[in-house]
């Protein structure tokens, strides 16, 4: 019986000692937050992953979804191709028109130069007296000189307008 009480005493004292040791002393010295060892790593990782956009990562897609997505992509691609071909057509037409305009301009200019040259030769060929016999009209009453270039361009414009309308 004495031994029984003795062992109860020993176990009670040792239990109390262990509780004090672990729950007070060691608890104070050794207890830390959950992320104690990972703090530095977590900080380093967050710094490294700062510029990474998580949204850019593609999610795995089901087969059925993939097929529908592929179809939609194909349609879009076809539309784009159609648009681009139309644009190209328009561009080529515009280019043609501009080239036609430039050609007509050149033709007109060449005809004007020829006309001027003819006039100049005619003037040289005519005698001096004839020109002096004609009374000179005063400057104010003279008709204003129209710029030949503008005339030619206006002619060209008229021709292009006619050509657009389908007139000869």
């Amino acid at each position, binding site marked *: 019986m004495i*031994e*029984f009480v003795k*062992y*109860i005493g020993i176990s009670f004292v040792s*239990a109390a000692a262990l509780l004090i040791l672990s729950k007070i002393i060691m608890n104070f010295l050794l*207890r*830390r937050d959950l992320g104690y060892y990972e703090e530095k790593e977590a900080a380093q990782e967050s710094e490294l992953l700062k510029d990474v956009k998580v949204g850019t990562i593609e999610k795995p897609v089901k087969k059925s979804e993939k097929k529908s997505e592929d179809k939609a992509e194909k349609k879009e691609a076809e539309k784009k191709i159609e648009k681009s071909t139309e644009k190209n057509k328009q561009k080529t037409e515009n280019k043609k028109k501009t080239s036609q305009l430039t050609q007509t301009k050149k033709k007109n200019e060449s005809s004007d130069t020829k006309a001027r040259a003819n006039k100049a030769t005619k003037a040289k060929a005519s005698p001096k007296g004839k020109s002096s016999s004609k009374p000179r009209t005063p400057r104010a009453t003279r008709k204003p000189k129209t710029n030949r270039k503008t005339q030619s361009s206006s002619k060209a414009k008229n021709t292009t307008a006619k050509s657009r309308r389908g007139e000869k």
Partner: protein
Amino acid sequence: MTLPMTMNNIHPGIVMMAFGILILILPESFRKALTLLAPICAGVAFISLNQKSNLVYAITDNLKLDFLTVDRLAWAFVAIFCVIAMINAIYSLPLVKKKEAGMSAFYVGTIISVVLAGDALSFIVFWELSAIASTYIIYSKHSRKASRASFRYLLVHAFGGNMLLVGLLLHMFHFGNELTNIANSYDASFWLILIGVGVNAAIPPLNSWLSDAYPEASVTGTLYLGSFTTKAAIYALIRFFAGTEMLVWVGAFMAVYAACMAIMENDIRRLLSFHIVSQLGMMIAALAVGNKVGIDGATAHAITNIIFKGVLLMGAGAVVYATGKNKITEMGGLAKKMPITAVCFLISSLSIAGFPFLSGFASKALIMNSLHEGGYVIPGLLITAAGVGTLLSITLKINYFVFFGKSENDIEVKMIPLPMQVAMIIGTIMSIAIGVMPRYFYGLMPNNDIINPFTMSHILEYVAIFIGGSIPFFIYLKKMKPHDEISIDFDWFYRKPLCYFTDVLSKGVYAFNLLCDRVSLSGVHYLGNHFGNPYLWTKKSSSTIIRSLSFENEDRLIGTVISEAVGTFVVIVIIAIFTFR
């Protein structure tokens, strides 16, 4: 021509390793059958062993590797390893994947081979193989924490393995290739082997890898690791250090320290890991006494510990599997939802605390007897206190806060697969059987030292310990509830200061490398410039005389050039005369 290998028995360890490799190679469909077949075949090979069994490989005429040496100590350890391998295999059937199952079988094989090794070289080979296999078992959970824990585990065990290797080489130099007792020799090989084995035996301050790595492994991984690594280390300690007086105190301190850590702990598997350390302390104290009862006590407690700690780890694993939670603070009232697990856990927790008619009672009786015989009163009291700590932290704390106490949260519980429940029941029945019939169990021990544990005084002693230890628990019930925090251990030294030190060291080395790079590059540039253009030697000289020698200098004094040339010629002639005289 004679073969270099002689064999008269199949080696159970090699059988296990072969099955492990087969599980790894063959498809998943073979996994379950092979996992069960492996321990059965190893068990059959073990039954056929006798003291004449050998497997010798002769490297040279003088150097032979003895893979298979059977004595009573090795026989007792291999017997329990085969039994627990079977129970673990049953438990792990629904849980593990192919690689982990294969590696676990291989790991068991290496541990059995460590125990059966008859010489130092084969001992260290299998010891290192077991470290590698166990590292993979921790890693096989494939979580971030597991991979980090496995890396730390590998580092610590690489350190221990290297210490052991050097120690054993020294041992071989002095005593030959045989494994002999080196207790109280206190030479270099003694300390190196002690450190090497001490790492695996989790002797403080080398203990923290255990509580760091075991909870991070998978449920079955923790079970396998808890059953083998440390027990093989106890076997090695009995072989090398039985009777080393110093270790009595080390063991007693270890038991109390780990019990205190367990009281603080919140993670259920980490708590049990601390208790592995505490129980190892008891075994070390017993084997260090060195008498027959002590060696039998250490062996017996290692065997019973494998069984009841196995069931405790299985129970904890079942709780983790069913709830998906590790922390005691997140659990409660699970006994109603998991009755079989709760009952098995309760019986095993009573067994670990040394409750009469359970296996722990039988083995602790031997330990206490050995300490009394050796006259170690204070270590005896410390071991008793550690037993009270076990009672507080496992028997009362886990059972109350996890299984039988009131639950604050309504926890959803998954159904536990049948093989897991069967394994727990087998382990519990074994624990009860050993506790009820300890005489047969004692008969299997190395020294066959049979005592009667069922004396009235011995039974009353443990009943008194249960009563006395339980009173403070219920008085401070609120205080006993764990906090959701971690407690730092000796691993703090290599996870904090050593980490900073290596960080600073690596930065320092990098800076030094950069400096060396710069200096050497500028040196090479300088030399390249000056060797490439000899005029610079004279042109940039601080001496006016040398500058005036420059060929680019149009105002050079021809007189000084001649005098310098003549002077150097004279010096060369004098040196030549003195050297070739």
